[in-house]
C-alpha cells in the first residue's frame, strides 16, 4: 500500500470546508430473513439457514417480512421521517457471487421513510442536527471468504467460499443529506451520529446493533471544498468502517489525505476506499461514478408495501424516548457531572448503568463499576465493555454487598471475576466460596491480639497519636484473615484497645 501524503489537520481545515455524508446500514434482528422464512442468526454453520428463495433457485419468489417492515417504519419514525404510504421495492442489478439472484432487492425511488433529522451531541458539548434524506429497506448479501492470496481480497485469491446464511438478512439503510458546518469536529460528528443511530435502533429493539458483528455498518463520504465555494468537491466513500473510533479516524484521515492532494492541484478520484484499522489509513477501492448503472426497475415479484395510517400511528405511539432527551433525563436523575456523564456516553454505557441503577445500585456506584473495574477488565481482554457477560442486576448486587460491608473492594473485585466466569450471582458466589468479610469482633480481636503480641509497641504509638503505626497491625490482621477482614472495623477495635489501656 503506497503511503499517502497527509496535510496537517489544522492546516487542512484552514484551507478547506469539510462536507460529509453518512450511509449507515442497520441489520434488523428479526427472527427470519427479509423475504423468506430462514432463520436470521449470526454465527451458525455456513449455509445452514438457506432455502430456495435466499439462494435464488429458479422459480422461487420473495415475500416481505412484516416485522421487518414494522421495524423499518419505527426507525423512520424515530428519525423524524415521513413514512411512504406506498413503498415499492426495486431491483438493483449487478453480478457478484455473494448476491444469489445477481440483483439486490432494495428500494430506489420510493423509500419507506424519507426527510427526517437527528440531533447529535458531540463530546465537546456542541450540538448538530443532521438531515436524513431517506431510510430504505433492502436485503444483505452472502458472505465471501477468499482463500489464498495475501490480502483476503477477491483479487489474487485461489478460490472463494460463499456463505448464504446472511443472504437476505433485512437491512435498513439510512442516508444523510450532505452535512456541513462541523468543521474540525466532522470526524467526531460522524462517530457521534452513528452512535446515536445505534442507540435508536437498540432502544427500539430492532437490531442487536453490534458494530463488531456488522449489525451496524457505516460508509463515510468525505469531500472538501475551498471555503466560500458553493460547488461540492469530489467525494470518496470509505466503506464498512466497523467501529466508532474507526469512523472518526477514517474521516480524519480522508480530510488530511484529500487536503494534501487538493493543495498540490491534484484532483480527487471519486472512488470507494477501504479503511485499514492496523495501518490507520484508507486505500483505494473501485472507482465509483454517479453513472454506475444498476438498471434499477420496480420489483415485479412484490406488491408495494402500503402501511396503514393505524399501523404507523401505533408504531409511533410505541417509540422510545429520543436519545438526546433520554440523556438529559438520566444525567439529571443520576446527578452525574458533565465530565462523568460524557465518559459514560462515550463508553456506550447508558443502557448498562440504567439497568444497574434500576436493579437498586446507587448511580455513582454503578458508574464506578462500569467505567472503572469492568472497563479495565474488558480492556485487558481486548473487548468492548458492553460485550462483557454480566448483567446490570449482578453489578447492582455487588455494589450493594459492598455498601452493606459484606465485601470490601478487594473481595468485590475477586467476586466479579467469578461472576464473569459464569459462576452465578455475587450473593451465590460469596456463599459458595466463603468470601464474606469477617466482621465478627471476637475473631478480629483474637487476630489483633496475635498481631500485637509480635508488635507490642504499637498501642503506645497510637496513644501518642502516631496513627500510621496502626497500619502494620491492620496489615498483619488482614493477612491472617486472608483478606476477609473489614479493615475499618480492625482499625476501630485497635483504637478502642489502645484507649482502654
Amino acid at each position, binding site marked *: 500500500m503506497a503511503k499517502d501524503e497527509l496535510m496537517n489537520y489544522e492546516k487542512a481545515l484552514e484551507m478547506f470546508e469539510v462536507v460529509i455524508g453518512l450511509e449507515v446500514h442497520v441489520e434488523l434482528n428479526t427472527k427470519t430473513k427479509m423475504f423468506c422464512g430462514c432463520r436470521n442468526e449470526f454465527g451458525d454453520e455456513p449455509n445452514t439457514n438457506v432455502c*430456495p428463495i435466499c*439462494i*435464488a*433457485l*429458479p*422459480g*422461487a*419468489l*420473495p*415475500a*416481505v417480512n412484516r416485522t421487518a417492515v414494522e421495524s423499518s417504519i419505527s426507525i423512520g419514525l424515530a428519525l423524524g421521517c415521513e413514512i411512504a404510504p406506498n413503498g415499492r421495492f426495486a*431491483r438493483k*442489478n449487478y*453480478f457478484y*457471487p455473494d448476491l*444469489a*439472484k*445477481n*440483483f439486490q432487492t432494495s428500494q430506489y425511488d420510493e423509500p419507506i421513510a424519507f426527510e427526517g433529522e437527528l440531533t447529535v451531541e458531540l463530546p465537546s458539548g456542541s450540538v448538530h442536527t443532521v438531515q436524513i434524506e431517506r431510510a430504505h429497506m433492502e436485503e444483505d448479501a452472502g458472505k465471501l471468504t477468499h482463500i489464498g492470496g495475501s490480502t483476503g481480497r*477477491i483479487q489474487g485469491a485461489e478460490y*472463494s467460499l*460463499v456463505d448464504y446464511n446472511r443472504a437476505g438478512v433485512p437491512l435498513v439503510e439510512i442516508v444523510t443529506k450532505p452535512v456541513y458546518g462541523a468543521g474540525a469536529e466532522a470526524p467526531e460528528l460522524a462517530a457521534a451520529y452513528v452512535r446515536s443511530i445505534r442507540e435508536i435502533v437498540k432502544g427500539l429493539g430492532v437490531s442487536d446493533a453490534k458494530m463488531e458483528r456488522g449489525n451496524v455498518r457505516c460508509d463515510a463520504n468525505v469531500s472538501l471544498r475551498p471555503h466560500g465555494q458553493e460547488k461540492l468537491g469530489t467525494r470518496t466513500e470509505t466503506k464498512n468502517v466497523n467501529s466508532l473510533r474507526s469512523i472518526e479516524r477514517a474521516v480524519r484521515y480522508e480530510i488530511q489525505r484529500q487536503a494534501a492532494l487538493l493543495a498540490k492541484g491534484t484532483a480527487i478520484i471519486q472512488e470507494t476506499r477501504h479503511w485499514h484499522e492496523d495501518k490507520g489509513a484508507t486505500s483505494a477501492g473501485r472507482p465509483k461514478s454517479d*453513472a454506475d*448503472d444498476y*438498471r*434499477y*426497475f420496480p420489483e*415485479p*415479484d*412484490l*406488491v408495494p408495501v402500503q402501511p396503514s395510517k393505524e399501523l404507523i400511528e401505533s408504531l409511533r405511539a410505541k417509540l422510545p424516548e429520543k436519545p438526546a432527551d433520554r440523556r438529559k433525563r438520566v444525567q439529571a436523575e443520576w446527578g452525574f457531572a458533565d465530565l462523568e456523564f460524557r465518559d459514560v456516553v462515550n463508553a456506550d454505557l447508558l443502557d448498562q448503568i440504567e439497568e444497574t441503577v434500576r436493579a437498586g445500585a446507587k448511580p455513582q456506584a454503578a458508574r464506578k463499576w462500569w467505567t472503572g473495574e469492568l472497563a479495565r477488565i474488558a480492556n485487558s481482554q481486548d473487548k468492548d465493555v458492553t460485550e462483557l457477560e454480566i448483567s446490570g442486576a449482578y453489578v447492582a448486587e455487588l455494589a450493594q454487598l459492598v455498601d452493606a460491608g459484606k465485601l470490601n473492594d478487594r473481595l468485590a473485585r475477586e467476586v466479579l471475576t467469578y461472576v464473569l466466569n459464569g459462576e452465578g450471582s455475587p450473593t451465590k458466589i460469596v456463599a459458595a466460596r466463603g468470601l464474606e468479610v469477617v466482621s465478627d469482633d471476637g475473631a478480629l480481636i483474637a487476630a489483633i491480639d496475635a498481631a500485637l503480641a509480635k508488635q507490642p509497641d504499637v498501642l503506645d504509638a497510637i496513644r501518642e497519636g502516631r496513627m500510621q503505626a496502626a497500619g502494620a497491625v491492620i496489615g498483619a490482621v488482614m493477612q491472617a484473615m486472608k483478606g476477609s477482614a473489614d479493615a475499618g472495623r480492625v482499625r476501630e477495635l485497635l483504637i478502642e484497645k489502645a484507649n482502654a489501656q
Partner: protein
Amino acid sequence: MSELIRKNASELVELLKTGQVSSVELTQVHLDRSAAVDQDVHSYLYQSPETALAAAADIDRRRAAGEKLHDLAGLPIAVKDNLTTTDAPTTSGSKILEGWIPPYDSTVVKRIREAGLPILGKTNLDEFAMGSSTEFSAFGPSRNPWDLTRIPGGSGGGSSSVVASFQAPVAIGSDTGGSIRFPASVTGTVGNKPTYGAVSRYGLIALASSLDQVGPVSRNVLDSALIQDLIAGHDPHDSTSLPESLGSMADAARKLDVKGMRIGVIKELMGEGFQPGVMNRFKESIALLEQAGAEIVEVSCPNFEYAIAAYYLILPAEASSNLAKFDSVRFGLRVAPEGNPTIERVMAATREAGFGPEVKRRIILGTYALSSGSYEHFYGAALKVRTLIQRDFAAAFEKADVLISPTAPTTAFKIGEKLEDPLAMYLNDIATIPANLAGIPGMSIPNGLADEDGLPVGLQLLAPARADARLYQVGAALEKMHEDIWGKRMIDFAPELEVRG
C-alpha cells in the same frame, strides 16, 4: 387405441369415482399412447412411468380404503417443464438447466399432488418460454398433431400437443404473452390464462414476473375449469397472488347460457393481417352468440397497436434480471473457460454455452432497455403504454361483459418457416399480448377449421380481472353450439396419428 384416452377429463373423473376404471389403468393407457406417438409429436421432455403409476396406485389404494378423495383424484395430468418438481428434472427447455432436479415443488405441482393427480411427465417449451413455436427449445421442437410438419404453437407447444394427441387428458401451461392461448388455437384445444395472481407463480421459472401466469390446457372448456379450480387460490409464497377466491369455474362452465350478455368485438383485432379462414370462422361465431341471445357490441382499443412494442421491452427487461441467477454458482450448468477461470469468466462461458439464441437476444434487449439513458425512452415508455392498454380495456369493459377476437392471425405455420424472422414470430401474439399487459384473463377455444388449409382456428375470450368465470360461461356455451352443429368435438376432426413402437 384405447377409447379411454379420447374421453374428456370430466367423464374420466366420473369413471374413476364410480370404480369403472382405476387410476393405474387410466395412467397406463396414456403412457402407452405416449410410447406409440411421442417420438413423432415430442410433447414430453421427461416421463417416468414408474413414478406416475406409483402415484396412481396410491390413489387406487386410498379409494379402495374408502378415503375421502379430491374430485379429480386419479386423473393423470401433464405439466409444463418450467414448473419445479422434486421427482423430475426441470429444465425450462434450456441446456443451462439440463438434468437439474429442484429441491422443492412449485405450489401448482404441490396442489396437483395433494389432490392425487398422477403426473405423466414434463412437457416441452421454447427455452424459458421465449417463443411461439417450441422451435427454441434446446431439446428440439414439438410437432402439431394435426400436421406433424407444423408447429404446435409456443411456448407451451408441449402441453397443447400432449392433449391434442391424447397423451394426456389435461395439462398445465404458462402464459406470458400467449403461451397457453396460441398453442391452444393452433391445435384445436382449450387454454386459459387466468387473471394475473389467480394462480400461484411460486415454482414457475420466471420469464417476465409481471406477465407470467399459470393456467390449464385441455380439450374442452369444462375440463379447463376443473383444473383451474384445482390450481387457483391464494399462496403466501407469491405476494402477487390474489387473496380472494374467484369462485367456481366449473359451475360457470356448466351454465351454457349467454342470454343478455354483452359481447364486445375488438375492432383493432380483425381484418388486416388476419387469415381469411380465421376471419370467416370468427364471424360465424359472432353470429352464433347473437342467435343465442347475446348482445354484440363493437369496442375500440386504439392503443393495442403499441402492445407488441411495449411487450418486447417489458418482457426482456424483466427477463434479463430474472435470468441473471443462472450464473453456474449454485445450480445447473457450469462451463470452465480455457485459461485462468475467474468467476466472471466462468459465468460468461456458462451463459454463452447454456443459453440459446432467442434467450440471448432478449437478455441483451432487456439489459439495454433498462440501462441509464435508455430507461425513459424504452422501459419507461413501455410502462406508459401498458397503462394506456389497461385504460383501453377499462373503457371496453364499460360496454361489454366479455370481449372476443381471433386468438391468432393465422393457423399453424410450418416448422422452420419463421425461425429466421423474429419479428414475424412476435406478431403471432398480437391478439394475446394485451391481456398479459393488463393482467386480465384470456381464453382460447376451438373455433373450427380454416377454409384454405383445414387447420384449427381459435377464438379468444377476454374478461375483466377476476371475472374468469365469464370466460368459462361464454366459452362453454359457444363450444356447445359448435359441437351441436359439427356433431362432434373439434378435436375429433384431427387426423389419426401413425402409431409406432
